[in-house]
């Protein structure tokens, strides 16, 4: 990932901090914001490094830890919970062999819990990177994971 190429896509004004962080994270193969990217961002926007860390730490979509190639955001919000997301997530966590918040040893999947994703009509639901999946059952998830592994 060339940090400077991404930075130069944005005007160097502070209100571009969030769009820049999205751009840097989305273009990192491990879906995270390494320290050198944050330092370069602070310099580019001429703001303190602490204010960049402050923003990264606040927003749940940003990560300072390397993540998998596929980031799973599994909705645990009230509607999905009502429709049984708790049991499905427990199964999913066992299936991947990791706890929520962890990454599989092969570096493919990070399993995260998420608040409402706005897909309540198809609860339980989740996103994997930019794609959405609804009406989840263990069988359905198994086939999605199988497909991604072979992609």
């Amino acid at each position: 990932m060339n940090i400077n190429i991404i930075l130069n896509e944005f005007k160097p004004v502070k209100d571009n901090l969030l769009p820049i962080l999205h751009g840097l994270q989305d273009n990192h193969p491990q879906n995270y914001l390494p320290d050198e990217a944050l330092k370069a961002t602070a310099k580019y926007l001429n703001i303190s490094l602490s204010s960049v860390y402050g923003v990264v730490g606040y927003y749940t979509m940003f990560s300072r830890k390397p993540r998998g190639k596929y980031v799973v955001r599994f909705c645990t919000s009230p509607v999905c919970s009502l429709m049984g997301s708790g049991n499905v997530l427990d199964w999913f966590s066992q299936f991947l062999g990791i706890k929520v918040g962890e990454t599989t040893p092969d570096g493919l999947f990070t399993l995260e819990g998420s608040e409402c994703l706005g897909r309540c009509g198809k609860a339980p639901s989740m996103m994997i990177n930019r794609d959405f999946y609804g009406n989840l059952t263990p069988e359905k998830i198994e086939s999605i994971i199988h497909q991604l592994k072979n992609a």
Partner: protein
Amino acid sequence: MVEEKRIALKNSGLIDPEDINDYIRVGGYDALKKALNGNPSSVIDELTKAGLRGRGGAGFPTGTKNLSTAATCTDCNKYVVCNADEGEPGTFKDRIIMETDPHILVEGMIIAGYGIGANQGYIYIRGEYYTSIERIKKAIEQAYSKNFLGEKILGSKFTFNLEIKLGAGSYLCGEELTLLESLEGKRGYPRIKPPFPAQKGLWGKPTLINNVETLANFPAIVLNGGKWYQSMGTEKSPGTKIFTISGDVKNSGHRELVLGAKLGDIINNVAGGTIDGKPWKAALLGGAAGTFVPYSFADVEMGYDKLKERGATLGSGAIIVIGSEKHLIPILQSILKFFKHESCGKCVPCRLGTSYLHEQSLLLNKKNSEDRKEILNSMLTQAQLIAKSSLCPLGQSPILPIQSIINHFSDALINE
């Protein structure tokens, strides 16, 4: 009777959302042309006549909001901001608008800018709404190419530029003053109100903040007049509203209905009734920051004031249906976990209070009925204190589900 009437969703599913020509073919941007031929004040007049109220959840009169932003100063920088940070559990109407008819929002934004005298607008979209972001981005580019955006729009003296800004996973940024902080590139911490955004908003300038669905009504109101809009719905809640129905119903989804439809009719006719065919146990109206109502509310008219009279809220238009076999305690716990997670931590009552409420709700798992009564009473008192002492609407929200669930379902909570 449930009367479907599509205004904000009039093109949804009928046009190609990625093609501006398709939108123009069905009369798109005609409202902008009409607005530009008249005075800016007539845009606001029509919105006021329409009686349109903020569709994000608070239901504040839109005309008043526009007027006060316009009146703050006549010759200064002002901004229009669209709140597309939809995150209220059970709510997905704004996503539907942006994914299926992005130009209606863009047109609404330009009209809003003309009305209040702003030359710059921002659409703040939550970061997880990838399709919405892509579609709005494309719509803005296309609108520039046709001079609906940019300098001297369609030969008029009016200039308006529009940009997208992204959220990054924070429910609180849907609160208007917090949204402005985030838009400025900061942590999503709420500001103290007043001053209101109409006086001091983005970068300290007068700012109009409207929800996606609210803005999507602007073109039709400008084209057909405020009176036309006002003639639909109920006296205090004119017009239409997009309801999103989820939970234990046969056909979950969204539908734009004339306000005043009865709750029971929406659940039975629009959503096909409950999955098990039995009367529903409860409905949660307006999302997590909403109110629980029992089956006896089936006859309530879905409008701001009729619901308020009975201690309930319309909020964002979310209707979450809870089936007869479901337990209520886990739902309450899930709601309180949500608030705990989304509290930003800036003010102490909310930071400690939302955690406390969640912990207390977990104790309901084990205790006997006498203990449960005591826990519920204590939660109610604490939620009231948090509501009174918190800085922003997040801390003021847990009282809504807690108070209403205790009012209507205390027996079920104590015995289930």
